[in-house]
C-alpha cells in the first residue's frame, strides 16, 4: 500500500473543519449585528415612551395637589409618596369648603400610565363633586363619586374595564375639634395618647353599583392627635427574610413606635423601614401615606 504522497500537505478534513467553523462564526456574527440593531431600535422606542411619560409626570404634578397645600393647613404633617413607576395611580387630595378641610388618600386601580390617567380624572371628579355639594360631607361626596364612576366608566364594562378607586376621605373642621370619615376599602388610623384606633371604611367597590350608600364615622379630636390616611401599597409590599407582605399590624406598630417624632421625621423613618424591608425585592404597587398632627 502507498501512503500520503506529497510533502506533508494539509489534511483536507481539517481544512474542511476550519472552513465550517468560519462559516458558523460568520453566521452568528451576522445574526448578532441584526439583533443589536433590533435592540437599539426597541431601546429607542422605549426611551421615547419613557421621555413622554416623564413629561406626563410634570403635567400630573401640576394638576394634582402638592404637599405644600397640606402644610398651609397643618404645619406638622407629611405626605409619604413612593410610586412604583415614574407616574403614580395613588394621589393625595385636599379641598377647602366652608369651614371644613377635605383630605383624601386615593388609590386608582392599576399603576403606570393608566393609573396615573385615572388619578387626573379622579382628582377632577372629586373637585367637581366637592364644589357642587352643599355640605362638605365625606359620605355624600363618596356617593356622588360612586355615581359618576358607575355612569361613565362602567358604561364600558363589556370592554373589560376594571377601573375603580379605593379611598380614605375625611373632613376636619377648621376648629380642629370634629372629624368625619368615610372610606371605600381603606381605613383611617388615629393615634391618641399612645393608643391607635382604626376606623374602617365601607366594603364598597366604587363604580360597581349605584344603589349602595357610604357611611360616616364621627370622631372628636384632641390637640396632639395624629391622623393617618393611606393606600394599601405599604402594608402589601413583599420583603424581609420570609418574603411575606409587611401586613397591617406591623404597620400600626411602626406608626405607634415613631408617634412622638415630628411628622417630617416620621416620614423619613417610614422610608428607612421600607428600604430595609424591601431589600432587593421589586416594589409591587404605589405607596401613599398622609400623616397629620392636630
Amino acid at each position, binding site marked *: 500500500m502507498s501512503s500520503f504522497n506529497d510533502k506533508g500537505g494539509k489534511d483536507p478534513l481539517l481544512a474542511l473543519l476550519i472552513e465550517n467553523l468560519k462559516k458558523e462564526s460568520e453566521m452568528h456574527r451576522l445574526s448578532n449585528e441584526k439583533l443589536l440593531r433590533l435592540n437599539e431600535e426597541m431601546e429607542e422606542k422605549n426611551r421615547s415612551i419613557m421621555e413622554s411619560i416623564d413629561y*406626563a409626570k410634570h403635567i400630573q404634578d*401640576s394638576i394634582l395637589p402638592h404637599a405644600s397645600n397640606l402644610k398651609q393647613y397643618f404645619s406638622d404633617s407629611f405626605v409619604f409618596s413612593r410610586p412604583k413607576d415614574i407616574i403614580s395611580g395613588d394621589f393625595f387630595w385636599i379641598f377647602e369648603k366652608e369651614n371644613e378641610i377635605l383630605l383624601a388618600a386615593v388609590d386608582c386601580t392599576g399603576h403606570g400610565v393608566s393609573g396615573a390617567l385615572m388619578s387626573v380624572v379622579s382628582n377632577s371628579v372629586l373637585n367637581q363633586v366637592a364644589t357642587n355639594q352643599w355640605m362638605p360631607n365625606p359620605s355624600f361626596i363618596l356617593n356622588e363619586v360612586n355615581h359618576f364612576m358607575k355612569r361613565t366608566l362602567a358604561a364600558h364594562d363589556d370592554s373589560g374595564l376594571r377601573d375603580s378607586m379605593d379611598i380614605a376621605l375625611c373632613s376636619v373642621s377648621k376648629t380642629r375639634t370634629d372629624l368625619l370619615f368615610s372610606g371605600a376599602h381603606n381605613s383611617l388610623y388615629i393615634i391618641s395618647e399612645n393608643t391607635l384606633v382604626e376606623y374602617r371604611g365601607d366594603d364598597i367597590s366604587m363604580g360597581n353599583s349605584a344603589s349602595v350608600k357610604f357611611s360616616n364615622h364621627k370622631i372628636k379630636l384632641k390637640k396632639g392627635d395624629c391622623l393617618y390616611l393611606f393606600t394599601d401599597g405599604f402594608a402589601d409590599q413583599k420583603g424581609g427574610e420570609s418574603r411575606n407582605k409587611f401586613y397591617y399590624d406591623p404597620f400600626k406598630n411602626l406608626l405607634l413606635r415613631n408617634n412622638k417624632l415630628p411628622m417630617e421625621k416620621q416620614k423619613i423613618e417610614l422610608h428607612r423601614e421600607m428600604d430595609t424591608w424591601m431589600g432587593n425585592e421589586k416594589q409591587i404597587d404605589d405607596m401613599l401615606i398622609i400623616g397629620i398632627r392636630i
Partner: protein
Amino acid sequence: MKVTINPIGIQERVDLLNEEAWRERNTNTQRALELAQEACGIAEKANSLNPVLKSSLAQSIRIVALCNQLLSNYKDSLTHCLRALDIFGELNDEKGIASVFSCMGTDYFLLGAYDESLIHHFKALKLREKLNSEEEQSSSLLNIANVYASNNDYERAENYYLKSEEIAKGLKDKALWAKVLNGIGGLYMSRSDNEKAIECFIRSATLKTDTGELRSAASTLHNMGTCYIELKDFVNAQECLKESMRIAVQFGDRTTEGVCLQTFGRLFLVQDRLPEAIDQLNRALYTFEDLNGKKDITECNRLLAEAYKKLGDYKTAYQHLDKHYRFKEQLAKLESAKQIENITLADEIKTMQVEAKLEKIKNQQLQQANTIIAEKNSNILDSIEYAKYIQESLLSTEEDLKESFPASFVFFKPKDIVSGDFYFHYRMGSIVLFAVVDCTGHGVPGAFMSLAGNNMIEHIIKVKKIYEPSLVLNELNNVVSRQFKNEDERITLKSGMDIGFCLIDLDALTLRFAGTHNSVYLLRSGGLIELRAERIALGNKSDQEFVEQSYALEKNDVIYLFTDGFADQKGGEHRRKYYYPPFKELLTRLSATSMDGQKTGLEAELKAWMKEGEANEEHQIDDVTVIGLKV
C-alpha cells in the same frame, strides 16, 4: 433548409452523462472520468440554484472522485469528495453525504491513513443505518473490516466481515458477498491458513466474474497467487499472478499492476530465478515511483537488495538497501511533518472554535436582552392601551354627537395609541355646545392634557353654568393658567390648548363661535364661509379677552370643526404639508356626499396623501380630528 435540433435540457444532459459514467466506471474508468467531468462542466456553467440540478452536479463530482480513486489519484479524489460534500450538505442529502464519506474512507485507506479512513467509514455507516439502506450498510461494514484487517486488528476485522457477510447473504447480493469473501480469505492468509484462504478467494473470484466485477477480481487473484507462493505451488502462483496482471492492465489499475509485479519478483526470488526477479522488481519500482507510493518503493528496494545479495552483487545490493533505509526515514519524516502541520491546524481550529463559541454566547446574551426589552415595551404598551379605554370612556363620542345631529361625523385618527385631540359635546334642550380641542403634544402627555382639559370645560359648563363661547374660553384661559402653574422652573410645560368652541341654538338657528387657532367652516350652497379663530395662547396668563362671532344658520348648513392635524400632515409628491386651501377644496368637493361618505372621503384622501402602505410612506405627525355636522 432549416435543421431543427431537439434541445435536450441541461438537467437531462447532465443526468444522461452521469448514468453513462457510472456504468463505465469499472470497465473503462478513463472514459467514465471524462464523461463525469463533462457533466460537471455543464452543470457548473448553468450555475443554477435549482436543487435538482445541484444534486446532479454533486453526483457528477462524486463520480469524478470515484474514478480518480480507481485510477489511483487519491489526492484528486479527496479534493472532489470535499466539493461534493459541500453541495450534498447544502441540500441536506444524507444518502449523498454517506456515499462521499465512504469514498473518502477508501481514499484514506488506500493512502494508508487508517485512522482517518475508519472515521469516514463509520460516519458513512451511521448515516446508512439511519437511512435504513442494508446494502450500503453491508458495504460500509466491509470497508471497516478491510481497514482493521490491514491494520492487523484481525479480531475486529473478522467481526465486521461476518456482520457484512450476514447482510450480503440475506440480500443475495453476489457482488458484495464476493468482496466479503475476499476479505475473509485475507484473514485466513494472515493466519497462514493458506488452503482455506485460497478456497475463499476462488469463491470470491468466481462470484466477481459472474457479476461482471472483473476489475476487483484482480486483487483476489493476486492474493491467491501470494497464498500459492506460501504453499510453494509456484505453477498455480504464476497463473494467478498472470491473470491478475492482465486484468489490472486492462482496467488501468496501476496500483494492482505494481503489486503484481512485485509479487512476481518475490515468486522468482523464492525460486532463485534471480535475473527474472530483478527484472520484475525493477518494473514494479518504476511503477511505484511513478505513483509516488513511498511505502511500496521501500519494500521493493528491500526485495531488490536481497536479490542482488543472492546474486553476489553486493554493491548494487548495498545501493538498494541504502535506498530502502532512506525511504523508510523519509516516510518517518513525512509522518512527523504531517503531524506538525496538523498540530498547527489543530491550533487554528481551537481558535476558530473559541471565536464561534464567543459569538454564540454573545448571540444568546443579545437574545436575552431582546426579550427583556420587548417585555418592558409590551408592559408599557399594555398600560397605555388600558389608558386608551379610560380616555375613550371619559370623552365624548361620535354617538353623543349623533344624538343632537343625526347627520354628522367624527373623523378621529390619533397619532399614537392615546390622543391629545378630543371633542366635547353637551346639550341642554335646543342649545348644543360642542368643541374641538387640540392639547399641546400627543401620546401620553397629550392624553393627560386632554382629560384635564375635558374636566375643566365640563366644570365651567356644568358647575359654573357658563355657556357663552367667549366667556367659556375666557374662564378656561384662567383655569388653565392657574392649574398649570410651573413648580419646577427647569421644565417648561407646554400646556397649551387650541380650541374651537360653538354654541348652536337649534330653535333660533344661530351659531355662536369663539376659538383660538381652530377656525370653523360653514358650508352652504353659496360656498364655504370661514369663521376665523383668534390667536390667543391659552394658558399663558394673558389678559386677552375672546371675541364671539355670531352667524345666522340655514337649514342644511354643514359646520366643520377640526384641529390642525389634517392640514399640517406631510405627504404628496413633494413631501409638504396638505395646507388649508386644498383642505377647503376637499371639504367642498366632498359636500355632495352623505356625512358618512364625507368621513370615508377624508380618510381615503389622508391615506393617499401619506402614501399609506407604500415604501415611501409618511409618518403621521400629529393627532387628526375633523368633525362635520348638518344643521
